[in-house]
């Protein structure tokens, strides 16, 4: 007995010592498209940026804002934010990080050539940058803007001396991927793998591994197979079809957390006349778009058995929801539960709305974007058919689908949205009136519009008092869901799987980063 304990202790010590020089290989499901942290706003790119670069305001595993390169921030006046910077931070090449580098970064962000999805929106509210001293910086905004710290948690800091004329190609080649983060880039093979070494001068918590191989394996089965074969130590986006098997495998452990991505149905709010994919039971177009009737929208929501979808289709890797954000997140609406499945009630509401025998509809959706997207819309088709709404289901590849949805070609469709942990983010993107000038409703493809709620949102977004702002955002969301602007289905769970000996801290924001992984023995 004592001998075994001793052996175990020895093993633990050896493990801990080994970890200092250990290599970890992780495989991600979505390819990284660029190492330039201001080029392409995409979750996989942002994850890699979090390993190499740092932000003024960081986010922890729960997506709470935490000090990073800035030690503190305050609104010194309604339209002025002041950030105090951390001292003694150096870039990988030894250059010191100062307020001037922040000013340089803010100026670079909107000016990255050919950026397919720009970060400019995060710095647009800043009208002027004022460098107070080497470690104090002020941002001036036109109107009070409480969301600035949240926005800046998306902006990775660069060095004026190093990156003055750096191009995106130089970042991708690895030569300019020089940041203040816990890892430095050793090599980058586009779409295949990135190799990182630990930055021993990192100011924060030291990473658990000396070297990290970051591989991109987009095929779901291949990723799971690589983990089971021991080729990789950690994988993300574990396919739901493999969950049951992996749960029962002692060599593998899963790390799961409820994320911030809501999967929902969007409906045609734009047309008052006939909607393109809704007809009566004989196939003739209806004179009026039934989706304009709140009773129809509510009936369609009640007809969906969300528990069946999360348990059978998602295999438990999602939680039914009746709103944008999960519990515990800023501006989650208390009291809005996932709508209960009520086929009888749905039939009654449809009859009240003048459709005692239902109607015909085509439900669209992608088949390669969200876990089980094609299966979910088929399941909803079953459920709607049972309350008399004869549903055809059409799943398409994401690129085709999203282009058509963006042109308002559909009557009802499934789509998802990954929120920032603040109700204003989904509100202004998904359910506010579409407005190019305001930059709102960009992803409001169903074109729901309620001017009164938009005005409330404008007020809320200028409210500097956090608790008052939260109350206002809750009120607006309550109104949006009372009006069934969208039909929320479920919030996805983010799942990582690791081999024995590795412990993953699951992140709410879906980022797969090496900082989240620790050797099991170091705990």
């Amino acid at each position: 007995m004592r001998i075994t304990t001793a052996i175990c202790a020895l093993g633990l010590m050896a493990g801990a010592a080994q970890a200092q020089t250990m290599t970890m290989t992780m495989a991600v499901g979505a390819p990284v498209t660029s190492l330039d942290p201001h080029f392409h706003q995409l979750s996989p790119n942002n994850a890699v940026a979090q390993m190499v670069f740092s932000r003024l305001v960081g986010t922890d595993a729960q997506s709470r804002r935490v000090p990073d390169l800035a030690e503190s921030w305050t609104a010194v006046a309604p339209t002025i934010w002041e950030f105090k910077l951390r001292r003694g931070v150096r870039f990988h090449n030894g250059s010191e990080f100062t307020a001037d580098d922040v000013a340089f970064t803010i100026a670079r962000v909107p000016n990255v050539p050919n950026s397919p999805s720009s970060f400019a929106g995060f710095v647009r509210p800043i009208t002027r940058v004022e460098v107070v001293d080497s470690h104090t910086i002020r941002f001036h905004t036109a109107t009070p803007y409480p969301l600035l710290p949240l926005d800046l948690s998306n902006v990775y800091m660069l060095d004026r001396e190093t990156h003055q004329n750096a191009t995106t190609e130089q970042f991708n080649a690895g030569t300019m991927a020089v940041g203040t983060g816990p890892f430095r880039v050793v090599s980058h093979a586009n779409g295949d793998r990135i190799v990182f070494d630990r930055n021993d001068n990192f100011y924060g918590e030291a990473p658990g591994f000396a070297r990290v191989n970051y591989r991109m394996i987009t095929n779901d089965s291949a990723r799971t197979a690589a983990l089971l074969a021991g080729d990789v130590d950690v994988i993300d986006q574990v396919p739901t079809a493999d969950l049951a098997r992996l749960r029962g495998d002692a060599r593998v452990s899963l790390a799961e957390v409820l994320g911030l991505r809501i999967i929902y149905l969007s409906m045609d709010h734009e047309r008052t006349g006939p909607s393109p994919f809704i007809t009566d039971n004989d196939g003739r177009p209806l004179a009026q778009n039934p989706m304009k009737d709140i009773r129809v929208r509510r009936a369609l929501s009640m007809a969906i058995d969300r528990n069946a979808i999360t348990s059978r289709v998602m295999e438990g890797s999602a939680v039914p929801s009746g709103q944008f954000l999960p519990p515990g997140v800023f501006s989650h609406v208390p009291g809005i539960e996932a709508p209960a499945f009520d086929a009888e009630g749905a039939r009654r509401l449809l009859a009240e709305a003048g459709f005692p025998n239902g109607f015909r509809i085509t439900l669209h959706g992608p088949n390669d974007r969200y876990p089980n997207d094609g299966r979910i819309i088929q399941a909803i088709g079953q459920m709607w058919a049972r309350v008399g709404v004869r549903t055809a289901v059409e799943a398409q590849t994401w690129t085709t689908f999203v282009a058509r949805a963006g042109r308002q070609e559909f009557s009802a469709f499934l789509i998802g949205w990954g929120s920032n942990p603040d109700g204003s983010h989904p509100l202004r993107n998904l359910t506010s009136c579409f407005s190019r000038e305001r930059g709102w409703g960009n992803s409001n493809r169903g074109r729901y519009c309620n001017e009164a709620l938009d005005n409330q949102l404008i007020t809320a977004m200028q409210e500097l008092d956090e608790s008052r702002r939260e109350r206002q955002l809750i009120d607006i969301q309550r109104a949006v869901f009372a009006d069934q602007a969208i039909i929320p289905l479920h919030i996805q769970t983010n799942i990582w799987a690791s081999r024995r000996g590795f412990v993953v801290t699951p992140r709410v924001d879906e980022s797969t980063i090496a900082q989240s992984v620790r050797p099991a023995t170091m705990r």
Partner: protein
Amino acid sequence: MSTTTKTPVVAVETPFRRFVSEFAASKIAMVALAVFVFIALIAIFAPWIAPQNPYDLAVLDIMDGRLEPGAIGGGGYVHWLGTDDQGRDMLSGIMYGLRISLLVGCGSALLACLFGATMGMIAAYAGGKTDSSIMRVVDLQLSFPAILAALMILAFLGKGIMNVVIAIIIVEWAYYARTVRGSALVERNREYMEAARCLALPPRIALFNHLLPNCLPPLIVVGTMQIARAIALEATLSFLGLGVPITEPSLGLLIANGFEYMLSGKYWISFYPGIALLVTIVSINLVGDHLRDVLNPRLKK
């Protein structure tokens, strides 16, 4: 070999009767033919014999999803081959899937044959510039991998069974055209064609009433093989998600649906449709192979 088992000549031996008896001489071919007829009957009568209508979303229940073969579902009947992720009875799914596969396979092969054979005969009969321009198009077509061409056509036309048929016709007509042209070039110089020309028969009648029947044997062989190819192509396209709608799966889509569950041990969702596809294609190919042996005089001993 075939001479020993020949039936005693009683009546006049018509070419057709000789063909039948020679075909019947091969046991394997007869078994293959029987299997194919059986499959075809299942496909034709699927709506009456299948336990469930797998294309009606209202009768499916997601709570019956991924049941093992032999399990009893919420509908009360036994799912002999299990259910897929949507709770679709696999046996019914395969029956209906065969329907689509055979419909698409035979339909597109027939239409491609009509078009291809016409083009081939025109090329052979007209000769000259018409011949060479048609044959260059055929060459171009044949130099392209069929699946790649079909993918491009479907990307352009969009999904749907009709579009799959069109895509298969476009990629397959060239085989018929080349085959028919080859035999028509030989046949057009025969005496009966000269006679037809001397009688000043209109080209349409000379072509279709006299030339075509004599080009038929190779066409039948190619046609049988192309049916199998068309079925396989449809399955491939559906497997890749470009063919039939997801609520009306053909065999290829059924296989694709189950593919993701292979690692977790739910083999039946892919396995049984795969077997059905395999048996169908092999039986057609065996029949086609033997047809070639019988119809090609050069292969006879």
